[in-house]
């Protein structure tokens, strides 16, 4: 299981540019948002919590289509099915590696991005905390979508059609937590919801993805 995690991570860093590209993506997205809204500080401040969460899920989505497809196409997945570790654990390891290259950079970059978007200083801690709790759910839910579309060529658009609706509860809970703390309210109920979603996904996603992969490879 750990060897699959490190292998995926190494592959992501060598070919995909790894976390670096995700960081540039976030900076670009924030810049585009600023251009799109005319750079009004008040406008940016009010949309910042939602926008940062939307960026997190978009960056997660962009690298998702190759999560299993690359291994299915070159025959690696056939070999991984015979591994001594159960397929569910393989899925979990790959989702964890995916999180390190997309979710983790977002958490690290969050303070800078929040500053660029003029977020309420009081909400900085909650932004980082909510991303830390919520982004693993994004990778896990994404793994289900990636497994369902593993055999579909050029399935990027289909994948976003399947996965984005599934992201709605996570997005709502995460963005609400940040908005609540920016407005000076208690954010803990939303954070509890977010944790429940992440834990639920950790329990559900490996089984759903493994079932989908077994069907795809049969």
């Amino acid at each position, binding site marked *: 299981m750990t*060897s*699959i995690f490190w*292998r995926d991570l*190494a*592959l992501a860093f*060598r*070919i995909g540019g790894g976390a670096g590209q995700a960081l540039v993506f976030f900076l670009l997205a924030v810049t585009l948002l600023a251009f799109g809204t005319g750079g009004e500080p008040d406008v940016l401040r009010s949309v910042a919590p939602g926008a940062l969460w939307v960026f997190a899920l978009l960056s997660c989505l962009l690298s998702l289509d190759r999560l299993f497809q690359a291994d299915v*196409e*070159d*025959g*690696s997945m*056939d*070999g*991984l*099915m*015979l*591994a*001594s570790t*159960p397929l569910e654990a393989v899925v979990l390891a790959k989702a964890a590696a995916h999180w390190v290259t997309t979710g983790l950079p977002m958490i690290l970059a969050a303070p800078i991005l929040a500053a660029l978007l003029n977020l309420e200083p009081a909400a900085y801690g909650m932004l980082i905390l909510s991303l830390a709790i919520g982004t693993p759910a994004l990778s896990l839910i994404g793994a289900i979508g990636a497994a369902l579309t593993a055999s579909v060529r050029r399935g990027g658009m289909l994948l976003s059609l399947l996965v984005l609706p599934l992201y709605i509860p996570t997005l709502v809970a995460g963005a609400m937590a940040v908005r609540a703390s920016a407005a000076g309210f208690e954010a803990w109920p939303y954070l509890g919801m977010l944790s429940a979603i992440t834990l639920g996904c950790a329990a559900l996603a490996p089984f759903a993805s493994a079932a989908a992969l*077994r069907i795809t*490879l*049969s």
Partner: protein
Amino acid sequence: MKLEAHAISCIRGGRRVFSRISFAIEAGEVLILRGPNGAGKSSLLRCLSGLVPLAGGSVTLSGLSEEVLDLSDDRETMQSQLAAIGHLDAVKPGFTVAENLRFWARIWGENDNAEARVAAALTRFGLDHIAQGLAAHCSAGQKRRLGLARLSVAARPIWLLDEPTVSLDAASVAVFADLVRAHCAKGGMAIAATHIDLGLEAARELVLEAAPRGVQMDEASDDPFLDEGAWI
């Protein structure tokens, strides 16, 4: 150890690929699958590896533990005894040749002495001079040898080989045949679908017939949509 197939059948994509095939293979033996294209050699190997569910019959493995293992009940235990080579070599171009092999040594074998096994396999398949080079620069033959080298780093008694010698030269075929021979001498077994003669003395043959064309009435119940009935 004895692997047995009892009247197994396979349906893929709504199409019957083969019907009621039975065979048994013991430790030290090689079974060569022969038959025309489309006879179901690849499907049979994928069924045996537990990737494709059987449409009928059963596959059992006896001699590993006290009780007899059944592929549909103890799939994961049985899969952990298998190493399978298909048409694809599972080579990651972004990794070096050695890194590729090291990964499979961990996935299909134990962690200890993985390095030694990798080094031995690279030497055996004549890949040690490019071991530190990226797999992206390998030729088709080198990629195939890298794919096959996964077998010799694996600690698995049962090998399932689908056209293992494609794009290999004569010298490499001989190296591969030696590897299979050594594997069987150590008590392993191998089932291989191949058109060429590997020159293995102990090999038995199983010939698969091409599936007959047209609707087979006696097997119509396989696909519920082929069943004759009240079609209005």
